[in-house]
Every structure is written in structure tokens, then in C-alpha cells.
């Protein structure tokens, strides 16, 4: 079962919930619960590749790193006739022909291969241009993976795609928790693709509600995925998030109160269930409810 933890609005506690959910499952009795047994049975992926923070809380030992590249065209000027066909077919304007020169702009290239396929002289080959990396390791019994976008690179999606391919490819049972990026555009969609359940973390404020609605539009309405809500910093703001969830029939699965102890613990890199261990049982209950929803 793959659970993505998202929010729309940033800073609502996605990483707090995702890391504590994984740690709560790890803390349990693996035999009776059926997770956390061999490698791959409890997996955590930080898909927030622009600003990945989960490692600060899970403190994994990372023993594997691979670069993520996009295939960028390289033109053999000996074979090129400067016909300009490559520039004509490139919708990103990432390749252009100026006189007897061909200019490639790697930061605009999406790696689609259209220029290579359309070159009448077969003068283009592709070389990987590094845009980020995928790091993997373990945090206790949790198999951990994170994507990291290189600074200055615009495209997060290929890094997320590679992270998911690498770790979710062989997953047949167990639980995978995906920490999604904030926002509701392409990196969020890429993270949600193929998951079984979307847990949306919000705060009961006008900003939280506004962005929760957008996240529900993507997860439930566009991608047809089941969604549930965690209300974080419960007690701050107003009741509009509850009214919205009731009206939409979206279950509120957990409430985490506004509590200075939690905020201070998180600020030092302590996970929520490290600060308040009584939440372990609550997160395990949360997983049972999600499992029941997914089974339906």
C-alpha cells in the first residue's frame, strides 16, 4: 500500500505527519501487523526534491547515491547539415541552429528525444545532463530514499520519477509513505501517480483551507484517489476546514493540537512521536483506517 502525504499549502506539517507515520509503523510488532519485516516492507520516500527535509527527522544512514540525468542532445557537427529540423520539432526551443553552429540549452530541454528521432542525418546522440540525485539507505527498519534536485535546476519531476521507479518498482506488499512536495502542480501530480491513498495535512486557517481545496481537486477529482485529512495546529484559526470536510464527506482522520512542545521538538529535528510517544498508537490507528478505506 502506497500512501502519499501532501497538503497544497506548505508548512502545514506534511513531513511531521509522514515521518511520524513511518516511525509509528516501525515501532510496532511487525509479526502481528504484517509490516516492517524484511527490506522493502516499510519504505519512506522524500519526494519533496526541491527542499527535502525528512532525513533531518528520520536520520537515515545513506549508503547509496545515483545521479539523475536528462538525455540532452549532442550534435555531431561533422554529420550535421544545419538543416534546422531539430529546432523546428523542439517545442521547448532548447536547440537552435545559427549559421554553422548548433546551440543546445540544457536547462530548457525536457529530454523527450524528438530532435534525435527527427534528425535526417542521424547526427544527434544523447548524453546525460545531471539535474539531481537519488540517495538511499535505511533508518532502523525503514528503507529510506530521497530525491535531491540540484540548485539552479528547474525540473523536479524527473528526479521524483526516478526516485519512485527505483524504490516502488518491486514493491508488492508492505507500506510505502511518500512525503509529497507542496503546491498542486506537476511535482505533486508526479508524486501522487500510482499511490493508493492521499493523506492531506492542513491547518485550520483561511490559507490552509484554500490550498486544501486545491489539493482535493487534484487528488480526488482529477486523479480519482481516496483522500483523508489530518488537521494540524488544531485550535488555531477557525472552523472552516471542519465545515468543508463535513460538506465534502472527507474524513478527518487525526487532529494534532497547536502545542509549543511539538513546535520546539520539531525545530530541533525531533519527530513528533519522539516528543510525544502517545501519538504512536494514534498513527497506527490512522494506518488501520487508511487500510480499511483502501480495501473498500
Amino acid at each position, binding site marked *: 500500500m502506497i500512501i502519499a502525504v501532501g*497538503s*497544497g*499549502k*506548505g*508548512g*502545514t506539517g506534511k*513531513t511531521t505527519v509522514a515521518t511520524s507515520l513511518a516511525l509509528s509503523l516501525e515501532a510496532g510488532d511487525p509479526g502481528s501487523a504484517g509490516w516492517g519485516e524484511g527490506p522493502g516492507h516499510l519504505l519512506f520516500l522524500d519526494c519533496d*526534491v*526541491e*527542499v527535502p*527535509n525528512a532525513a*533531518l*527527522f528520520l536520520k537515515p544512514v545513506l549508503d547509496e547515491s545515483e545521479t539523475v540525468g536528462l538525455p540532452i542532445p549532442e550534435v555531431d557537427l561533422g554529420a550535421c547539415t544545419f538543416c534546422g529540423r531539430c529546432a523546428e*520539432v523542439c*517545442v521547448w526551443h532548447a536547440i537552435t541552429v545559427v549559421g554553422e553552429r548548433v546551440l543546445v540549452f540544457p536547462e530548457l530541454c*525536457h*529530454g*523527450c*528525444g*524528438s530532435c534525435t*528521432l527527427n534528425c535526417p542525418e542521424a547526427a544527434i546522440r544523447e548524453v546525460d545532463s545531471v539535474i539531481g540525485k537519488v540517495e538511499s539507505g535505511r533508518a532502523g527498519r525503514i528503507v529510506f530514499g530521497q530525491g535531491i*534536485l540540484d*540548485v*539552479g*535546476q*528547474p*525540473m*523536479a519531476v524527473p528526479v521524483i520519477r526516478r526516485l519512485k521507479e527505483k524504490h516502488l518498482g518491486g514493491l508488492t506488499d508492505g507500506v510505502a509513505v511518500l512525503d509529497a*512536495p*507542496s*503546491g*498542486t*502542480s*506537476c*511535482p*505533486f*501530480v508526479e508524486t501522487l*501517480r500510482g499511490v493508493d491513498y492521499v493523506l492531506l495535512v492542513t*491547518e485550520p*486557517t*483561511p*490559507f490552509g483551507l*484554500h*490550498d486544501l481545496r*486545491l489539493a482535493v*481537486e*487534484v487528488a480526488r*477529482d*482529477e*486523479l480519482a484517489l481516496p483522500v483523508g485529512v489530518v488537521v494540524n495546529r488544531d485550535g*488555531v*484559526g*477557525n472552523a472552516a476546514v471542519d465545515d468543508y470536510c463535513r460538506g465534502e464527506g472527507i474524513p478527518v482522520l487525526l487532529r494534532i493540537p497547536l502545542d*509549543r512542545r511539538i*513546535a*520546539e521538538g*520539531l*525545530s*530541533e*529535528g525531533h519527530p513528533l512521536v519522539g516528543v510525544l510517544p502517545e501519538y504512536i498508537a494514534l498513527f497506527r490507528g490512522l494506518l488501520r483506517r487508511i487500510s480499511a478505506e483502501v480495501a473498500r
Partner: protein
Amino acid sequence: MRQLVLLSGKGGTGKTSITAAIAHLASVQASVVLADADVDGANLELVLDPRLTESHPFMGGQVAVIDPLRCTQCGLCEGVCRFSAVLSAADGYRVDPSACEGCAACVYQCPDDAIQMVPQQAGLWFRSETRFGPLLHARLFAGRENSGKLVTAVREQSRRVTLETGRNLVIIDGPPGIGCPTIAASTGVDLALLVAEPTASGIHDLRRTLAMVEHFRVPALVLVNKADINPRQASVIAAFCRERGLDLVGEIPYDTVVTRAMVSGQPVTMHEPEGVVSAALRAVWEKVRDRLASAAPAGMGE
């Protein structure tokens, strides 16, 4: 014309609340235009009480559409698509629009001319009037791509409106993260105000955001929000700023008045002008203003 962008890397550090307060304070002394560059979580309008005056469609990229009447089911399109967007079913091939990158590689490979690229409306951009000045904002439709392109559209419009109305300062509320939309919000601005949080995540993301703005040669100032949540981490940020030669322009205490102001739909500096948060923000604005006045104009600023 000067352009100021507020960034944070990490979400939820208070960027939008601080943008609204700065917009309020700046509008007293300068003539401002506001731009909400967080197009897939546009919240600035919620605290500016805007009156919508213009709404325009935003055309994002294109997606491939297969004509089932012309398709001979050869499967070449599926073979060339690197984004797994071509789906094969018993009744033929079709394109998953949410996966299609819009590259058109399949169009050129199709021997039957059965594939067309169809432009997609990916969102809307708006102009509104607020009591502090015109606001340019946008809405990206659920799950669409090209948020960076929409940010660029919002910025182009904000520059146009600034020139047309003879105003002199654009204040941009940036998106979280450091990728495509954040880069689009930051390139060519005169100054970035980085809103940091004194937490392990906040410091990690401040470093990445700073590296991004330095990569694009944008000068930066740092502000610590919710500073008293963890004074030790706040001093780590202060030491980091000293080490890197960055101006730390203020420390704002954590106060639920910021949330109460948001619920009331106002900048905190209007909601509780005499409070400690508002006083701290006024001091921040003065430093930002002085820095903007002394900054050499950026390449795209004029």
C-alpha cells in the same frame, strides 16, 4: 522600477503574511504593484480584499490527442513516448493528458497523421485593485504543468502595469521550493527577502534557497520569523548570516495575532498596528526600503 521577491524554500514560514504586511507598509511611502507568484497556492488575495477587474485565460502547453478513426494501432507513438503518456487499451491507443509532457515526439513519428497537439488552457491570470495598489495574481488549474510559465506571465503583467501606472515598486510573493516556479519568480529581481524559520528544516531550506538566488545573482536579505520558537536555532541563522555576509534584517516573534489577522482578512500591521509583531515588521520594512533604494537596478528591472 524596483522588484522585491519574498522567498522561503520551506512552505509555511509566513511568507504571504509578511508580504501582505510589507505591501501595507510600503504603500504608505511608495506606489506599489503586488504580484502573487505562488500560482498553485495563491493566498495573498485572501488578506488584501481585492476587487477583481480583469480575468484572462492562460494557455499552458499542448497535449497530444490521438484520432481513433485515423489510428492504425501501429504502436510507434507508445514506443517513442518517454513520459509513459501513451496508453494502450483493447480499443486502441490514447494519451493520458496528465502524463503528456507536450513534446510532440509522437506526432512526428505517427505514419498515419493521427495525432494532433491541442493547446490547453492551464489556468487564469487576474488583475485586481487593492487598497495598497494593483494586484496581479493567477490560478493554475488543478494539477497542470507550466506553473513557471504562469509565474512568468504574472511577472510580465506586473511589470507592464507598473510602467503604465507610473508606480515604482513591485512586491512579489514567491512560491515555496527552489525549482521552476521559484526560479521564474526570482530571476531579474533587485532584491530577495528570504523568510526563514528557526527550525532544522527552516535552516536547511534557507541554505538551498540562498544557493538558488546566488546562482541567479539576486542579492538577498534574511528575516527570521517565529524567532522565539527556538532561540538557539535563531542564533544559528544569525551566525550563518554573519559568516556569509548577509544582512539579517529582523527577528519576528511567534504570535497567534498573525493567524487572527489572516482570519480577519487583513495584514497583521492593519489588524493590530500597535503590537510587537507589527513593530518588528515596520523595522524590517525600513531596512528593506533602504536596501532597495541603494541597490543598483537589476538587468530586467527597468
